[in-house]
């Protein structure tokens, strides 16, 4: 399987990455090599095998639906790039 520059651009956009021309070329080549490694999986027939998402196939633990966390908003926003009046600031989204 080989990855073309167009594929790289599409994937980079999905991943919200902005790659330079040189980075795109490098990505196309290294991703092609990685996909060749990955494609070794296709050598085994797995039609009757159930996927294993998690090593122990366990169910999510449930807890009672009650408030356990305290309000730490100010503490958590101290490390934000930009916050004001309890809000995270980002570039304008709606004109």
């Amino acid at each position, binding site marked *: 399987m080989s*990855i073309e520059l167009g*594929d*790289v651009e599409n*994937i*980079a956009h*999905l*991943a*919200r*990455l*902005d*790659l330079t021309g040189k*980075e795109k070329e*490098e*990505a196309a080549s*290294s*991703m092609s*090599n*990685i*996909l*060749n*490694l*990955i*494609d*070794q*999986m*296709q*050598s*085994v027939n*797995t039609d009757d*095998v*159930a*996927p*294993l*998402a*998690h*090593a*122990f196939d*366990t169910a*999510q*633990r449930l*807890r009672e639906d009650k408030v356990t966390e305290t309000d*730490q908003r100010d*503490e*958590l926003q*101290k*490390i*934000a*790039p*930009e916050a004001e009046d309890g809000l*995270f600031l*980002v*570039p*304008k*989204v709606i004109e």
Partner: protein
Amino acid sequence: MIELGLAALSRALADGEFSSVELTQAYLQQIAQENSDLNAYVTVCEELALSQARAADEARSQGNAGPLTGIPIAHKDLFCTQGIRTACGSKMLDNFIAPYNATVVENFIKAGSVTLGKTNMDEFAMGSSNETSFYGPVKNPWDRSLVPGGSSGGSAAAVAARLCAGATATDTGGSIRQPASFTGITGLKPTYGRVSRWGMVAFASSLDQAGTMTQSAEDAAMMLNVMAGLDLKDSTSSDTAAEDYTKDLDKPLAGLKIGIPTQHFSEGLNADVEKCIREAIAEFEKLGATVKEVSLDNSHLSVSAYYVIAPAEASANLSRYDGVRYGYRCKDPVNLEDMYKRTRSEGFGTEVKRRIMVGTYALSAGYYDAYYIKAQKIRRLIKNDFQKAFEEVDVIMGPTSPHTAFAIGSKNDDPVTMYLEDIYTIAVNLAGLPGMSIPAGLVNGLPVGLQIVGKDFAEAQLLNVAHKFQQATDWHEKSPVK
């Protein structure tokens, strides 16, 4: 005193041979002398360490000391530490100071341990050589032109160079065991879910597991006693009861059944490394164990399946780095999309971007079944192989790595070459099993690691097996420190 292992230090502190303050000062002095070259620590917490050491000595004088009280340790720089930067080897988190402690960190604080600092690592734990760190490569204390392995290279080098009594680390595909092997120390990756992941910067959530880097198995058992247990803050934390991991250390090994996977002694394994491993296994036979061959039929597919599953999970986990709530944000974004894209492109290094790209591709429409579901099916086959083998044997042994430590810069041309570094360790993470690497010999003056893999939650048995070997041999006492 710093040449002693954690267990010996614990006894010396209890006997009043020296104080925690004296011990902490000795480590800080050694760090000041060695770290600028080794680059094992990215942050040294001198003031905090000394105040914790004073508190530990005070607690001891009042009769309130436990086994880890006053023991100076280091944390891999992906465990969140309140008030101390947690950078995870990345420019993205270069300014990140967590407002809370990881459960693992909190457990060591409760045990009275001293935090010397945070150790260097591959960026977001993605690497096998510690060369992808934003803070530069760590050097191997045995030969400073070589890598210490990765991703927990800083923790491994810190223990090997006697810059701490023990260190925490994490292992997603071999990140504890391979650096332990390259630096001649004892590395333990517990069963998935044995140690809480809460407060650990996530890489691949179904594979990540925290563990220990120490001089010996006894040291590891003492650290695991502090780390293991159910944590309701981590939904995948296991409710299987934690044990006293030191209790079985001295059990005789008579009757132990060791499985040797044919696939781990095939093409690609360095002949001198193989000789060390076979001699180590012969030593176990002398201790009363029996050895038989087992087959892990699908182990050759473990790297392939891993490089779908781990990047897929990483691409989802790392989507949180968007420049909004914490971490790096690009300068003067013109709009939201520009902010996301430039923040992520400027904040992440090459290998991290590469894995996000691979993961995004594997999860994208049209490829999900062919890659992601296929990899999960292979994951089941790999787990089945281990389950079948464990019907016949108690533990599985083989080399941790096909060779000894390699030169800095020698494997950076093709990422696949680096990915194949973890060929013997990755399957263990896919199956969720506990694994160790212990020193088993030297080849041309460089350490060789023996990997020991156990059944689910059989950490006490693994540590027993490793400890008995270390009672009979002295490979774990070999040190690069003159």
